[in-house]
């Protein structure tokens, strides 16, 4: 029987396009006791760096209308623990696509971390995060210049062998298509977009920023139209597959993202309001497809 929901990313088959976004689903294993993770097309793991990181001080979370700001700052145990413990533990309970999300503070750090992730047989795709707004001297700095983005992409590609490399793009740029094209030209196998939008809240009683880091990444349903527009622009400009991300909270949003050009769709902040949402979306998709007279999901990619 044909799986109406299946999609393919650079030769990696996903049972469906639904992928919890990096940073909103831990390392997957945290949720293994809650439901059978195998319903998920893929899982993008918490962003990892060469060295372990505590991240920023708390508060790291601020609520907003239609979304939230986070300034976690890449808390993670380091890429060695990722490949030695976290990924093998997840693979024991999960047969789908495991996406390692890698961040860094220099091209050399990206290269070292990605090489380690690429050597891990249980990792299917490497997602290079050049768009984290919450760390200084790295992360987003590489994602806001076409030249720097291309430099990271080609350096990382050189050490990842045949493993697909997706570059995760920042929306905090004046022309995301220019950055996307630079990454494609530098050898990226695919793109994930968008990361969070740089934002801020002030506690007017304390007269201080709500998050200790002053600024943080804004995400949630409020950014969906912005993300959708960028996915549409980028997907129509590049030939490589796009994972759409940003404000997705329902099966309808998944269909909309795919029509805009996404081959797979990541669900981020919504996991924080509803940890079961990815499973619920996968379960709701067939009925929505029937209603919209969609036979197979891969037929609708970039059709608008």
């Amino acid at each position: 029987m044909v799986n109406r929901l299946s999609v393919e990313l650079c030769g990696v088959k996903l049972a469906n396009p639904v992928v919890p976004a990096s940073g909103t689903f831990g390392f997957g294993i945290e949720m293994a006791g809650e439901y059978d993770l195998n319903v998920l097309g893929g899982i993008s793991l918490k962003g990892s760096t060469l060295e372990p990181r505590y991240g920023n001080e708390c508060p790291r979370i601020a609520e907003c209308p239609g979304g939230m700001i986070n300034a976690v700052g890449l808390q993670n145990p380091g890429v060695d623990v990722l490949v030695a413990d976290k990924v093998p533990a997840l693979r024991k309970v999960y047969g789908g696509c495991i996406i390692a999300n890698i961040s860094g503070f220099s091209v050399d750090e990206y290269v070292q971390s990605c090489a380690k992730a690429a050597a891990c047989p249980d990792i299917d795709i490497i997602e290079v995060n050049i768009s984290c707004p919450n760390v200084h001297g790295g992360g987003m700095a590489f994602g806001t210049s076409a030249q720097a983005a291309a430099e990271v992409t080609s350096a990382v590609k050189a050490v990842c062998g045949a493993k697909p490399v997706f570059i995760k793009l920042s929306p905090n740029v004046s022309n995301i298509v220019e950055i996307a094209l630079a990454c494609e030209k530098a050898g990226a196998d695919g793109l994930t977009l968008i990361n969070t939008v740089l934002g801020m809240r002030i506690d007017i009683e304390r007269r201080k920023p709500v998050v200790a880091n002053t600024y943080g990444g804004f995400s949630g349903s409020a950014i969906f139209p912005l993300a959708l527009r960028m996915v549409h622009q980028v997907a129509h400009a590049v030939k490589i597959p796009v994972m759409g991300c940003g404000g997705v909270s329902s099966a309808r949003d998944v269909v909309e993202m795919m029509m805009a050009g996404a081959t797979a769709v990541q669900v981020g902040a919504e996991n924080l309001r509803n940890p079961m949402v990815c499973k619920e979306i996968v379960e709701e998709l067939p009925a929505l497809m029937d209603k919209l007279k969609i036979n197979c999901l891969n037929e609708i990619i970039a059709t608008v």
Partner: protein
Amino acid sequence: MKKADYIIESNRRIADGVYRMTLVGDTSAILRGGQFADVAVNGFYLRRPLAVTEWDSEKFSIIYKVIGRGTEVMAAMQPGAGVNVLTGLGNGFDASAPASKALVVCGGIGASPCFSLVKELLAKGRQVKVYLGFNTAADVILQAEYEALGADVTVVTMDGSAGFKGLVTDAIKAQNPQFDYFYSCGPKVMMKAVCDMLADCPGEVSLEERMGCGCGICYGCTCHTKSGAKRVCADGPVFKKEEVIW
């Protein structure tokens, strides 16, 4: 963790700016006193993490203080209305800790998460001495309920308008109760003072932090501990006192 819809049975003011909401529905995920529930509030993006006061097989209750717009909306919710809640979150207190005589020190609405703990300790045949600290008489909650459980309760207020006048630590010093284990929940300064004073006694405290998911997947509420970074929501909120870096 369980995500389910609940019906509000009651939602009433029990002290100045403090409300108790009782929710009817599936309580099977709630296992220990000191765990919390994450309540969805219409019009707000994130849920409100609130300690479970008491539960049985059909319903559970939470006590919350109105401090922002989200809790203002909660206070206006009417009996009969539905609300979506995640239950069974956090580790909760360890009522099996080896103690024959337990000391429980609460500050403000910190009296809420300790209530089921005390109930369980008493059911296990432990002697329990409870201190309930508040700023003033209008803030006092759960005194009668704790007494009805059979606990030895001392109410303490800063201004002396009810019970012992002063800090909970003053009352403990003055009364010198006997205990071999302690539990505490309340403002951080109070819990630190309690831990400092009871340096030779094993114990555990319940911490608080602004949370994202409430279930350990976003790493938004991490705190420093002596054994490294821990998530308040999933590794806590209850930590052994030796672990805490104040």
